[in-house]
């Protein structure tokens, strides 16, 4: 089979939404599933970190974060001048595409599992570290020369917002407890992960369906951006992965991180930092177009790109 069965759950949800089925996932269940996924991913990353010397990842880490900051800086002028969007909208969308999506990343990990490809465990750490710069750059772009940012509230949201908080908290617990200490939790957090991801994708499909309906009103520029931007970001990720000498799996995950757009942390932070931006635009693009594009089409392409460059030595 070409793609992972879990993505079929997204399709099922999207179809339910588009056909106006009465299928609804209660918001408290949505919250519980997302808390679970964030914690589980964090724990997994922490355990991997505990197994490897941290020193190893400092240099590649800096490169990955700096290159990642290019993404919103590239997206902003495209949206502003080519897409003729308002400054706040352009900045907010740029921040969404600069940050990363935990679920897209998880689908990437699952994809690698199916292909039996290993990857550098510390990639998970960048789920935490790529989020923040993009959000701060987004806020700066929105305000450049115009009024003030509510930095206090905004930075609080960035650092203590639940997604970063749970990822970072999980990382720490996983790191402190180590592979042995976490073993009794393996069954819940690791073995059940993929099943829970399937349920979450069902819900994502339902939500995305309602966003897709909105998209018609925003025109082809935004839809085009939501497809071309992840491809460009993935090229950047593949190139960097190649330069850093990452494995095929690590390169795929780096491209996937760059290509993914946030729809948990970024919407919350941007709603506070750049409230004039229309959230329907950024969420519609990231959740209604980029997310399904990545999980169905993008990831296989990025994988192909990663295998391609891997045959050329660094």
């Amino acid at each position, binding site marked *: 089979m070409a793609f992972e069965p879990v993505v079929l759950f997204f399709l099922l949800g999207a179809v339910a939404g588009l056909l106006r089925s009465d299928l*609804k*996932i*209660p*918001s408290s269940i*949505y*919250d519980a599933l*997302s808390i679970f996924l964030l914690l589980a991913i964090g724990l997994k990353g922490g355990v991997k970190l505990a197994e490897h010397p941290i020193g190893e990842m400092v240099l590649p880490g800096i490169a990955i974060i700096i290159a990642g900051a290019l993404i919103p800086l590239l997206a902003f002028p495209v949206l502003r001048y080519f897409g003729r969007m308002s400054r706040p909208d352009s900045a907010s969308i740029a921040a969404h595409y600069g940050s990363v999506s935990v679920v897209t990343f998880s689908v990437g990990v699952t994809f690698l599992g199916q292909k039996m490809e290993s990857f550098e465990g510390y990639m998970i750490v960048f789920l935490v570290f790529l989020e923040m710069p993009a959000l701060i750059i987004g806020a700066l772009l929105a305000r450049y020369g115009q009024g003030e940012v509510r930095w206090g*509230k905004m930075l609080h949201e960035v650092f203590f917002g639940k997604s970063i908080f749970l990822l970072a908290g999980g990382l720490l617990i996983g790191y402190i407890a180590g592979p042995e200490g976490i073993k009794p939790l393996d069954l819940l957090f690791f073995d059940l992960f993929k099943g829970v991801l399937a349920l979450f994708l069902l*819900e994502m499909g*339902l*939500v995305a369906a*309602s966003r897709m309906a*909105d998209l018609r009103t925003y025109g082809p520029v935004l839809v085009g951006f939501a497809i071309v931007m992840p491809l460009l970001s993935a090229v950047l990720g593949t190139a960097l992965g190649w330069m850093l000498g990452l494995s095929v799996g690590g390169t795929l995950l780096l491209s996937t991180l760059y290509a993914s757009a946030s729809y*948990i942390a970024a*919407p*919350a932070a941007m*709603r*506070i930092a750049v*409230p*004039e931006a229309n*959230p*329907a635009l950024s*969420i519609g693009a990231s959740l209604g177009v980029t997310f399904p594009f990545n999980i169905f089409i993008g990831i296989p392409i990025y994988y192909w790109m990663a295998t391609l460059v891997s045959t050329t030595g660094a």
Partner: protein
Amino acid sequence: MTAKSMILLTIISEAMLEAILADEIMQLGAKGYTVTDARGRGTHGVRRGNWTAGGNVRFDVVGDAELCARIVARLKEVYERDYGLLMYTSPVELQN
């Protein structure tokens, strides 16, 4: 009965503003407030309440006319332009 005439101010806004609005309301002098989860539809579109970023909250505040006017004025100034917001008042008899 010792019923006192008061004003009930009802505010409907985005769920993610809950903590912020609660702080505003208390700082403007309210003795309390009540919050319920809500969803709905208005000029900002449908808010299904099926995921975190997509729900509303409803605040009910019982207070005197001045308090309510102060809250209305403040929320209009700061939040009305950028956030989904509906506010209405009605007279009530406080019974305790």
